[in-house]
């Protein structure tokens, strides 16, 4: 990551990669969230249904600040994505929405992932996205200045 890019990005709220983890093409929820994030100024790359490898690769290639996941299946599939991201993009925050089983939320939160089930308020989503972007940029600034 070049320092110049960082400076150019500083005024933008952040760059988000948004993907669906399951082979389930329902787009109603993702469309709303993508719209909300763009409305708040984020740049959003929509990957659609994607595998753990595809998500991790895109997060690196696009140098995103944040990964948003729409889930609708097993916890194991989500965990595999988190494992990949931990390796290839450890400083990137992850937010997760969709049909999240209540009993899985604590396991996800323990991995540092914030969860937004159906009915979540837009303001909470945007606020958390800002916080995660700020955290990443803060850590990048530390790295750059070091």
């Amino acid at each position, binding site marked *: 990551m070049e320092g110049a890019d960082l400076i150019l990005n500083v005024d933008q709220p952040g760059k988000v990669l948004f993907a669906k*983890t399951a*082979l389930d093409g329902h787009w109603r929820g993702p*469309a709303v969230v993508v719209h909300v994030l763009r409305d708040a100024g984020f740049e959003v790359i929509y990957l659609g249904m994607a*595998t753990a490898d595809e998500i991790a690769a895109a997060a690196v290639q696009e140098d995103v600040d944040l990964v948003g996941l729409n889930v609708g299946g*097993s916890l194991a599939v989500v965990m595999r994505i988190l494992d990949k991201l931990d390796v290839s993009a450890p400083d990137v925050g992850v937010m997760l929405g969709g049909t999240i089983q*209540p009993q899985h939320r604590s396991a996800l939160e323990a991995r540092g992932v914030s969860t937004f089930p159906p009915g979540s308020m*837009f*303001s909470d989503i945007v606020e958390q996205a800002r916080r995660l972007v700020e955290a990443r940029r803060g850590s990048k600034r530390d790295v750059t200045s070091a």
Partner: protein
Amino acid sequence: MSSEQGDSDRYFTASGIPLRGWYGPEDVPSPAREAGAGSPGVPPYVRGAYPGMYRTKPWRVFQLSGHGNPEDERERILFLLSQGETGFIMEHDRNTADHLYNVDHPEVVARREDVGQTGAVIQSVRDYETILDGIDIGHYYAHPGGAVVQHAPFALGCYWTVARRRGLDLSRLSGTGQSDFFLTYLGCIPKRQIPTEAGIRLNTDIIEFCGRYLPRWVPVSIAAYNAADTGLNAYQELAALFANAAVYLDEINRRTPENLTRLAYMVGGINLRVGMDFFEDICKMRAARKMWVELLRRRYGITDPRATRLRIHIVTAGSALAYQQPLNNIARGTIMAMASVLGGTQSLGVATYDEAMSIPSEHAHQMSLRIQQIIHHETNIPAVADPLGGSHYVEALTAELEARAWEVFEEIESRGGFAAVLDEGWLHDLAAGNQLDLADAVNRGDRKMVGVNAFVEDVTPWEMTGFEPVEGVWDQSMERLRLVRRERDGRAAATALRDLETACRGDANIMPAVMEAVAAQATLGEFGDVFSEVFGDWKVPISF
């Protein structure tokens, strides 16, 4: 009428129709008054499809179900039937069925733990044999899956093949297909999918095949539910429904006009969504029946009262249910189920209270049955047909929905028809716009949702968990797939698949070749590869 009836700029239906404080006879256009004064069971059927309605024919209790391995799906179906369900539905795993992938497809392998979480994994006729073991399919009305257009030939072929092997006469078999365009061309778009034109051809083949061999089958139940749950409002849903029906009828008319009336009857088994706007959705069902009569008469000159009788299956709106305070969904399900019955449905599935968090648990499923049974047995509602008919409000709203629906129908026609508005993404834009408006309104608090943006405190005495299907489904599905490949007559399967490909490339009905391929134990993924090879891939008209 006068201002004393109240402002019409503050109260609206869910689809945005302005509402008065009360309605009088002057608010009902005279043709609507006449239609509303008619009898149930006679055209234009505003007041109900059958003269005796629920006295002679209770609605079918018909719940979506399925998960895990074929044995798990069988177990759940048997549970529901033992609890009073009167027909059964076989739900397929989204990860495989939507895309026509076997479980060893790399896209599936990459997410193997998801397999079986959204329906049962069914890859060959053997899996149908397992699910249906011990279920009297000659007796029950069934929807054996195939909600997805490109998946339907395989799903129906499997079910009918099991029936044949049991020595059942197909002409006496009753049930419904679906092959719904709104599901995978609008709301839930898969990784690979044949173009709309090929889909219309496949569906018309199914309709013709049923016309010939399965007269008691609903070949393609147009599922306007899926259009509505993707975002279309009540009158857009009606318009899209009939634009879709018109495509099938036009195609039948082109192929075999002499069969049109008989096949129009078969196309007249459809499904709609009932959401939380109680009266609007009741009126929508009444308007739908009238519109079908009008469509058949005006466009095709069909007046046969058997053909013009629309039969409705209702699914209550999954998207109207909340993640927060999930038991509230039992109240919502009850209200939507009541609207469905008051609107005169022939068949009903009530979305389960755990809808927002997982596929249904056994208990949530049972509650959906109990809601229907309580309405049936305890309320006396079913004793009288169309109990709301003649209400000034109900008749005025029915007429208004019909008028608006025809306008949208004409707009779809002027944009090139049903396939064009899907191919060009016009319906998607319409749905997306409504979705955003609704989400915005809930977020701002303009539209209250109890437990979500109002009355959010919850003192429920226990923690609700989502239903988790059995584990290891992918491994077991792989094992079944290996067995099929090893044990079937490989040459016979290959020949049948080649014949299927030839049929797809030609003009003849593909269903005989589908039945042969299914009987030869061709697998789901092999069907997908043939379709993909012959028809190519639909160009998805939306991007984010």
